[in-house]
């Protein structure tokens, strides 16, 4: 999933690219300062920043939705906030939000195509996963409870067939 954001994070001027759940929890974070050593202090600080950024971005979108609600407008598909020291661009991704923080030198418009491409990649990945899941999973009534093996993990058809 992190590789989906790789092309976005590599664009010069992009500081951070995140996939955020609608409740503000970061799902995937790609920071430009990301290195191999995940245990470094910088990585910890970056993850803390990402958490607060995600919460603030999702909170702001929620506030905007509430503000435009009386006009019977649906949730905006793309939101751009350009400010003195950078920009925040947010777009709806499947089941989540794609958020990019960019430098002030970068025009948010330059991010339109790369972000749409990232969303398309996510949709494709989800479709592939669903197709694969559909092929492998036995066709059972969804109303029935799932079967669990003795180890405690959900059983798949590959485990049960002898």
């Amino acid at each position, binding site marked *: 999933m992190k590789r989906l954001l790789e092309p976005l994070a590599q664009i010069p001027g992009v500081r951070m690219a995140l996939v955020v759940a609608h409740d503000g929890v970061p799902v995937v974070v790609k920071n430009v300062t990301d290195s191999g050593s995940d245990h470094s202090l910088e990585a910890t600080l970056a993850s803390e920043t990402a958490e607060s*950024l995600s919460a*603030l*971005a999702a*909170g*702001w979108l929620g*506030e*905007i939705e*509430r*503000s*435009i609600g*009386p*006009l019977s*407008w*649906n*949730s*905006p*598909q*793309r*939101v*751009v*906030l*350009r*400010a*003195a*020291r*950078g*920009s*925040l661009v947010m777009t709806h991704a499947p089941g989540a939000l794609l958020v990019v*923080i960019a430098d002030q030198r970068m025009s*948010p418009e330059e991010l339109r195509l790369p972000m749409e491409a990232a969303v398309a990649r996510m949709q494709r990945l989800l479709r592939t996963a669903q197709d694969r899941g559909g092929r492998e999973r036995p066709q059972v009534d969804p109303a029935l409870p799932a079967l669990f093996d003795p180890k405690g993990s959900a059983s798949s058809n590959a485990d049960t067939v002898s």
Partner: protein
Amino acid sequence: MSFVRRIFSGSRLRDLRQAVAEAPSPRTYASLAGEHARLGEMADAARVASEGLELFPGNGELSRLAERSRAIEAEGRTRELYRELRDAPRPAVWRELCEILTASGRLERAEECAQEWFNATGDGNAQLARGTARCERFFADKRRDDGRLALDLIAAAEKLLPRDQRPLRIKLALHMRIGAWNDARRTLGQLLEVEPGDAVLEAKFRTLSTMTDQTTTIEQALREVEKNGRLVDEESTPQDVSAAAGEIRPILKQMCNEPGVRAAVYVRGATALVQGPRGATAERTARAVREVVQRSRTAARRLGLGQAAEVTLEGDFGHLHVSPGEMGASALWSTRPPTARLRQELTELAALSGGPSKGEEA
């Protein structure tokens, strides 16, 4: 630069100087400053542009040239200082670097540099430089956390630099700009202990003594600044309020005549001017724009992005383009993305210092 090119550029400079002397105009000044800049003489370019600005104040081209030349000059000096720091780090170099970075608005880098300086020497001046940079950041972004941290850093600098008036002066500026009058008076008292008999400080102290009935704490004052996005000295004067009402409505009307535009809105405080929708829809549109502006301003500050400059919402409703200004904000709701010209007009409209008179005008 080759000898031949030097001769040619020398004669060009002579001609341009003569042109400035014979017919001083923004164009001749700009040409001379531009020539100096082309030759890499940034100090001269800035000097000529400033001289031109004295004669033709407010000229955009000359202001841009002066600012740009100064920025390039500072950039060059910054590079030299970094080189010196690598070879022989010492407080004087750190101090100059911090000052240049703070003055050029690279506040994050200034703080990093001051932190490096403090780690290396434990100098109180380093802590003061950090505090100054954070203070500037607070003035720019109006974030409560920045204000708190700036005060902490200044307090640390005060401990390390006893009987030094610089930290006290910065603290006083911060207290006064957020409207924490009691604390400002206390700081003024401290300053008067260091600088007894200073007439300006004494006059300020007397003025503040009359304002101590306002018992706003620092925390309350910082919260208020973050909420409003405005410092006490940035409050608009009441006589400005109705000045530009007459010029705003025609601009909004003109915008609404553009193809695809559904509404043009100007909001300032509790007042709104709406062109396009009518009746209850106009009121709802104005309320929505006002809320989007307020939320976005706060979000930009909290996200550490600084002052919000532009907000765009795109969806099945079309495009809502909002331009928050210092005083008011303008917005355009259209079926297609607004053109660059319309966006520019919105920014100019939001930057107008005046605004409509009180009362909802929808």
